[in-house]
């Protein structure tokens, strides 16, 4: 029971007045795009949503501090009941590891070592390792990026991997259970289908700060919680003087360079705090406009660095971490109904539906396989970088 705090806790900051991107007029959106005033959100709300007030920050317990509650939807008993429902899909799930950290799940889409994951979770030019359900690890090679679906095709040398079983390409009805398998016996998380197909318009890439001009570089006037800026430890009052080694004189220069980055990209910032100068590595995110409010971010938990710009996804209410995307989403028969592609908000995770993602994955794999075919007259059989086999 969590009684004591929760009622006090309702004490509220908000009843907010939140502006919603999808409600903004085209003019407002244009203004948001043209804006030079602030990096984050200078949009003109045409209306506001009434938002449930969130608990005041000081009064809330630390994340993960809550006592386990057997009555929660994702209680241990529930997750246990889902074990049988996974139908072996956990063996078709891999952990994508970089620097000993899981950055995403991956989906085994072909037994010959072809694995799909979430592209923007995987930094460029890094050694990628896939860890399988049996605990074994294999170096993976990045074969193809698909930026429209935010997918990456990986290749491992392991053979005879258990590939996922696709469900049919009908969209699962609202209210149906979906599970996100882990490589273990119990799913990572469960949820239900919340809504049918939707299009998520792409948003600008943001660091998560509001910038002002200053005598040196750009002065940070506000840092939005939960964004790359906050995670990199930036504070209001800091000045950004350089981005990725490029010294920048004013706010607009910093703004423009940051905006040209890709979601998920890490940028190296030189920051001036008082007399002190330090380097910070921060991740760029393409946050939906309605998340660009401190309170919104506070109530959302971590969202994916790339959570917008999808032409067809369906919505489910599973609470995923950004590093739990990229893997399969299965129904109660262990069949894959989608690939988890983003945690987009407090109650919104997106999955690419079978009808969209399956043909595209099959195309990527067959093209990659074709490229692997050793040319008959080639002196170097493994000329194509995609076919280089790394030996552990």
């Amino acid at each position: 029971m969590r009684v004591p705090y929760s009622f006090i806790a309702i004490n509220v900051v908000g009843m907010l007045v939140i502006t919603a991107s999808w409600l903004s007029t085209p003019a407002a959106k244009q203004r948001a795009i043209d804006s030079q005033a602030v990096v984050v959100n200078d949009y003109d709300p045409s209306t506001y949503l009434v938002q449930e007030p969130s608990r005041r920050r000081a009064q809330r317990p630390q994340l993960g501090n809550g006592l386990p509650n057997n009555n929660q939807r994702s209680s241990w008993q529930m997750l246990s009941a889902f074990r049988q429902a996974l139908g072996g899909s956990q063996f078709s799930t891999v952990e994508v590891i970089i620097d000993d950290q899981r950055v995403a799940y991956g989906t085994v889409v072909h037994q010959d070592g072809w694995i799909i994951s979430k592209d923007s979770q995987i930094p460029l030019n890094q050694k990628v390792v896939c860890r399988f359900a049996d605990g074994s690890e294999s170096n993976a090679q990045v074969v193809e990026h698909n930026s429209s679906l935010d997918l990456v095709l990986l290749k491992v040398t392991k053979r005879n991997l258990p590939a996922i079983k696709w469900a049919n390409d009908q969209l699962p009805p609202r209210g149906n259970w979906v599970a996100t398998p882990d490589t273990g016996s119990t799913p990572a998380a469960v949820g239900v289908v919340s809504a049918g197909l939707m299009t998520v318009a792409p948003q600008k890439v943001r660091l998560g700060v509001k910038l002002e001009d200053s005598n040196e570089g750009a002065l940070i006037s506000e840092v939005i919680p939960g964004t790359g800026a906050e995670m990199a430890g930036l504070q209001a009052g800091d000045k950004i003087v350089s981005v990725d080694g490029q010294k920048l004189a004013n706010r607009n220069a910093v703004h423009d360079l940051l905006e040209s980055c890709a979601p998920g990209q890490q940028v190296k910032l030189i920051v001036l705090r008082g007399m002190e100068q330090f380097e910070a590595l921060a991740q760029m995110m393409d946050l939906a406009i309605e998340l660009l409010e401190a309170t919104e971010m506070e109530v959302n938990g971590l969202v994916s660095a790339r959570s917008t710009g999808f032409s067809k996804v369906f919505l489910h209410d599973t609470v995923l971490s950004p590093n739990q995307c990229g893997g399969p989403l299965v129904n109660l028969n262990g069949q894959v109904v989608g690939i988890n592609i983003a945690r987009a908000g407090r109650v919104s995770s997106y999955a690419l539906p079978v009808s969209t993602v399956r043909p595209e994955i099959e195309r990527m794999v067959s093209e990659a396989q074709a490229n692997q075919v050793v040319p008959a007259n080639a002196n170097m059989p493994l000329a194509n970088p995609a076919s280089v086999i790394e030996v552990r």
Partner: protein
Amino acid sequence: MTVLQEYVAVPHIAEVSMVLSKQSRHCSQTAPVLTALCNMRGKMHGMMHGMTAALSLTLLAIICSQAADAQEIVVSPPAPASPQIVSPQVVVPAGSQPSTQSRTAAKPVVGASAEQKVDGATYVALDSTLNRIYNGWAPQSVDELKALESQQAKVAAAIQQVTVNVRQGPAQGSGVLISGNYVLTAAHVGGKPKRDAVVVLSDGTELKAKVLGMNRNVDAGLLQITDTKGKTLPYATLGKSKSLKPGHWVIGSGHPGGWQSGRGAVIRVGRVLEVLSDTLITDVALIGGDSGGPLFNLRGELIGIHSRIGTDVVDNMHVPIDTFAHDWNRLFKGEAWGVLPGYAPSIGVLGVEDDSRAIIGKLRKDGAAFKFGIQVGDIVRKFDGQEIQTFEDLQNAVRATLPGDTVKIEVQRGDRVLRFPITIGVAE
């Protein structure tokens, strides 16, 4: 740019006046507060744009109280009644019904059970294999999960039809159709009684509605659709919230972000975590625009209305449906009372001891009154259109607002009378 404020006075105030002016009615209501604040402190640039109402409201705070010292006295009505035994049938008194409204099939009947003839479009009979789960247990096998899934998918399909989007002024949230063309929603979505509102059905049809009453103590609001455009509207089957227990399965819906073509109502499933006298807490996660949306049990009976959230995803508060039944007559008559839980309106002023006039004795530096230029010694003459004689009048007038509302205040300062807008803050 509409300057809301007029005033009758000296030029140097004019500067403040411009600062306080509202950019447009679309602007989020607290933006002017921030503008004013920032200007006053001389560090305006770009600051207001991203500041949320929440932030500004944290800045605001303090209440209207006549205490002589700075001690805060939260003005709030008596605590809401503890859980009420709900009479099986709560019927709108015939005499008070609008004459134009035929009410033959339109009694909100609370407490329908499987044995009775079930009224409403959302009831889904429970498969006998589900009894254990209905009573709050977790499924233990795939078969039980599948039985639960089949039930919740049926309920999900049914409740989409009765889940509506509610727009009142520039605010919007969700609501649910009940019999008699009434719409239950959250008090903070409805705004104020007698105002016009728009109800958007699941197919996108917009219907005119009127705000009736609200019990802000529990965040319950009632609307009535005034023109159905000749449609016969589906409505929710009403349930009871008093029998809910932690573990019970519940299904929520809403139009987060407003009604969206092609998407329809969004469905979530969770369980009851706590049952308090005036609040249900579940892990059916809510987000902006869900406020006022319905919460159903596994039989598709309406048991709650979405209200507010904490930062943890499992902190989601709903208004128990029984409170609507309990308050029905007052809501129906258009009464508005109470203070939203943890959300009392405040302007941050204190009166003067032994002086019943509405004289400002003290100002909180983080209060709305201070930010909007009210000074110690000002005598409040009007507030939100009401004549103010005593400090108590002022307290009552503030209490009738919602935090975030922008209202006009008229004060006497020396021999001048000043009139300007003020955006209400929230009491700490």
